[in-house]
């Protein structure tokens, strides 16, 4: 079976700095893969390469076997990769419903008119915000605007979902709700890549993990195995004699 998403030798250089170094990994359908590593290890840059926010310097990224590396972000979105942003990006002048409708109208599966509105409403129900549909975006709390952004990415029925530290900045109660929400997406059989620092979330959500350090992949495998790998622990905590 061909993987939904596969990276081969994906590389991103900023001048002399190699942010992502010759990265290979595959994501199978219905997989929830954690992309983890210390700060500055290139996780978010990798996500940006996949979503088309940045163009890779070298290497290949394929969605269902067809090459998407170097395509502009709008084409990648249309082919079925949707993302949330590390710093939530609401459309400030619009209502909650319109924010989600944006994903339904222009995403992978495109709708218009009542159809788009109904789809946006369904997504708001999924994230638990249908009662705030007509509220202006500015009136929402931080976690609620994160939920809206998640609903916006879901509305276009993407094949792959990229979550860039979606759980960052939430308080313990919100974190619990957030993890439950992503778990419900996993149980629907969605294919998701999660960049995250919250280890509890990684443990409870991801079947597999890819670990990065200084731009390169240092480990890959089931979450349990990867998190007990001595090299991974060293990358996070440093060496004993350091």
């Amino acid at each position, binding site marked *: 079976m061909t993987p939904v998403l596969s990276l081969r030798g994906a590389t991103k250089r900023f001048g002399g700095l190699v942010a992502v170094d010759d990265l290979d990994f595959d994501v199978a359908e219905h997989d929830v893969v954690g992309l983890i590593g210390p700060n500055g290890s290139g996780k978010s840059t990798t996500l940006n390469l996949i979503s*088309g926010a940045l163009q890779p310097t070298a290497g290949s990224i394929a969605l269902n076997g067809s090459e998407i590396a170097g395509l502009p972000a709008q084409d990648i979105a249309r082919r079925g990769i949707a993302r949330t942003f590390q710093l939530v990006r609401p459309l400030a002048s619009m209502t909650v419903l319109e924010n989600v409708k*944006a*994903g339904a109208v222009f*995403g992978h599966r495109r709708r218009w008119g009542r159809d788009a509105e109904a789809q946006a409403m369904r997504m708001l129900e999924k994230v638990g915000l249908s009662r705030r549909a007509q509220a202006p975006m500015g009136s929402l709390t931080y976690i609620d605007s994160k939920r809206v952004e998640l609903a916006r990415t879901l509305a276009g029925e993407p094949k792959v979902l990229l979550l860039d530290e979606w759980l960052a900045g939430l308080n313990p109660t919100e974190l619990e709700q957030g993890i439950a929400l992503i778990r419900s997406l996993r149980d629907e059989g969605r294919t998701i890549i999660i960049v995250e620092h919250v280890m509890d979330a990684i443990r409870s959500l991801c079947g597999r993990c890819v670990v990065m350090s200084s731009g390169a992949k240092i480990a890959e495998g089931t979450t349990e195995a990867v998190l007990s790998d001595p090299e991974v622990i060293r990358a996070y905590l440093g060496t004993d004699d350091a």
Partner: protein
Amino acid sequence: MTRPEVQSLSIGTVLFALAACLPFLSDAYLLSIGVTIAMYTVLATSWALFSGPTHYISLATAAFFGLGAYTTALGIEHLPYWLLLPIAGVLGAVLAALVGLATLRLSGVYFVIFTLGLAELVRQIITWGQNMSGTKGLYVLTAITEEHIYWQLTALAALVFLTGWLIARSRLGFAVRILGDDEEVARHVGIHTARVKVLLFMVPGAVAAITGAMLAPRYVYIEPAIAFTPMLSFQVVIMALLGGTGRLWGPIVGVIPFTFLWEAISGTFPNQTTLLLGLAFLAIVYLLPNGFTGLLEAARSRLKGAPA
């Protein structure tokens, strides 16, 4: 269509019918002001269709306007007048598309400078052409009267409002609102942002060119300095911002008072008009960032909020 949509359509139709009756008052001064107001309504409203949601300030109005004026001036000897208007529109749209493709990928500042330079560029090309051929200006002699020009402009204004209303209901209109809020998000939900901007920029381009083509008979004598005056571009921007670009009818709220003020000032202090332009600009920046319509909406929401 929903009830408020039918309502606003009917109100619009009645207002345009009333505006079309102005020439029957047979007051030459009123008619001349009417032509000016109709002209700036067309220019400022179409300008705001693009620059309102995208926040790209275009100073290219004079370039398109002059292009249209020259279309009439050069073509009137060879083609029927009614054919020249759509030709001017097509030329304006094509020029806008070329400018858009070249600049709209860049950030706003480059776009402003480029559009300002564009009017000057086209003017210099025509001046050069005239020097080569030995002619200085062109006479546009037609049987078209001030009334005809007024009616044409009113009809064009109705067309611009209809276009704006249709765009607002379309996917293109939704795309440009998303783009105006956050271009990065727009790209990542799958909007081809460059295409949206170019398509939308073609609207004011075509409309300003048609306006220029309609007004050429009024000038009688056309030369580059008249047809491509940068003052026109600045006035359109200031009127649109003064009225407010958040609503389709916003710019007209700026056009009417500004035209009367301009007439009054240029009548008594003809050399101080630039000063008025500057003061109006300061007023917009410091006092009316969302224009008159922004002021009205704020007042309305305050009234609504008060009893609750």
